């Protein structure tokens, strides 16, 4: 790209300008969240919106990392996320692929049934009763199984598989490959952008598990990080609950610290997925 035409240059200038503005608009408030976690309660309460604290403080983070429950729940979250995401992506991609073949009998009905669940839900109580009946209470399987497939992810992934170039499939069928081989060795590897996307989605979903955990897990030793952290953000719902825990001031700094702590692992992971969102995964696979 050595010589760009005038209109191309203008175009690129606009592109970069818009992206830079978007980034700043997004980054500044987020930066505030991070800064507050390193500030003191007094300053945050008195200053409104600011970006450079007069007094830096690591108190909030020290508090979090000192809590026994914190490290325990962090570990639990890792486990839930690892197994859960694997279950999610396996089930979803298999079913999505199966449903992407237009000649499969019963496909339309199954698609409708899946869609239906996106709109209609039995509710918390019936689902809880089913989980209870299967004896899954207090086990991580209650979380992994009740959220095994997100219909949205399934439908969109199916869409990705549908737009997979049919020449490739034809080519491999001519070579005598079976359906499963086709799926595992050819379609999957070349669908990495889609797989990466939904693995990321499920990863985040699992990492953020909150409500299901507190509903199905009675033993607080099994709780994931989010449950532990959200306790920090509770304003007293009932007038008879007082929140004072001596020795530590609760307030915006520690609340923001919990936000940062939950978000950081996800931000760290993102670059590993990012490389799949770049061009050229189908390069050279089909000639002519």
């Amino acid at each position: 790209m050595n010589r760009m035409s005038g209109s191309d240059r203008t175009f690129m200038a606009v592109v970069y300008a818009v992206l830079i503005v978007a980034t700043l608009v997004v980054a500044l408030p987020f930066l505030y969240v991070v800064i507050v976690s390193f500030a003191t309660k007094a300053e945050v309460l008195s200053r409104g919106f600011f970006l450079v604290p007069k007094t830096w403080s690591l108190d909030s983070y020290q508090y979090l990392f000192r809590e026994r429950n914190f490290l325990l729940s962090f570990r639990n979250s890792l486990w839930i996320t690892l197994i859960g995401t694997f279950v999610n992506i396996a089930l979803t991609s298999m079913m999505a692929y199966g449903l992407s073949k237009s000649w499969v009998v019963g496909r339309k009905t199954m698609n409708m049934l899946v869609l239906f669940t996106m709109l209609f839900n039995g509710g918390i109580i019936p689902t809880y009763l089913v989980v209870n009946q299967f004896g899954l209470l207090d086990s991580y399987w209650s979380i992994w199984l009740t959220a095994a497939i997100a219909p949205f992810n399934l439908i969109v992934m199916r869409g990705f598989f549908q737009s997979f170039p049919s020449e490739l499939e034809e080519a491999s069928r001519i070579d005598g490959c079976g359906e499963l081989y086709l799926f595992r060795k050819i379609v999957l590897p070349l669908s990495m952008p889609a797989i990466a996307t939904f693995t990321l989605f499920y990863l985040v979903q699992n990492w953020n598990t909150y409500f299901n955990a507190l509903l199905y897990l009675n033993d607080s030793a099994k709780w994931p990080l989010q449950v532990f952290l959200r306790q920090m953000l509770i304003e007293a719902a009932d007038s008879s609950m007082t929140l004072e825990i001596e020795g530590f001031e609760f307030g915006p700094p520690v609340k923001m610290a919990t936000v940062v702590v939950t978000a950081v692992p996800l931000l760290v992971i993102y670059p590993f997925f990012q490389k799949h969102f770049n061009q050229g995964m189908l390069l050279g696979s089909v000639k002519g």
Partner: protein
Amino acid sequence: MPTSDIRGRLRRGLPLYALILPGALFFLLFRYLPMGGILIAFQDFEPFDGFMNSSWVGFDHFVRLFGDADFWMLFRNTLVLSALNLFIFFPAPIILALLLNEARIRMFRRAVQTITYMPHFLSWVVVVGISVLLFSTQEGAINQLLASNGWGRIELLTDSSYFRPLYVLMNIWKESGWSAIIFLAALASIDPTLYEAAVMDGASRWKTMLHVSLPALRNVIIILFILRLGQTMETGFEQVLLMQNSLNLDVSDVFDTYVYRNGVLTGEYSYTTAVGLFKSVIGLVLIVAANGWAKRKGEEGVY
């Protein structure tokens, strides 16, 4: 070519059915088995009595809902917010993805991607809290700036006319980066030879974006659009509840917040379920209509 004979297709489909089976079991056991809970909408459900022992009230809850003096206001507010989401929020991640796709400097692109997707991880409590710090009339940073320069203060958070714009803008701020990921993935799957061909033809970057990148997103956009239509009655409960205050109720009260006060806080499961059922039915009608239209245009639908 696949045989059109049913038996042949069934046989060929066996390995595919095997792939579908585990997922299908999930739907059956954890989605359809509890689905009967919808019937709670026709009962006067008490958690302790359970399904079997709670009394039946037929369509009473729906009568109550439709007869509520606020019904049409709630409906209008819900639809307006959804329309804003559908027509203003929806294109934002697409545009973001397209622009990012054009940016050639790798480091820049990665940085922008990562930064723009960060707000997705903030809860609405935090985001609305920040908006109060920025926009509140008295102590908000923006209004303090205006006041110190001699200009008048703007009541961004309490004046009804700012509610809807703020709603959709905050949503764009928070979710565009995250929602763009799907489009980025789709763009990544475009055959690079198409771009090479466009260059050969002497097309400008702008034209390439319009005629190569954008069309490639067509399928994804249509699917997502149809799915979003199904969510028409969903307006993001947490965001609306947090942004709602005494002065903007006439535009900010939606079904979700209404049912929060009239069903959730008061422990009336049946009424809550009934309102939810109503919302779902509307969504279903819209999806069926949209899907039908899409299919007639020759597109892949959602079923």
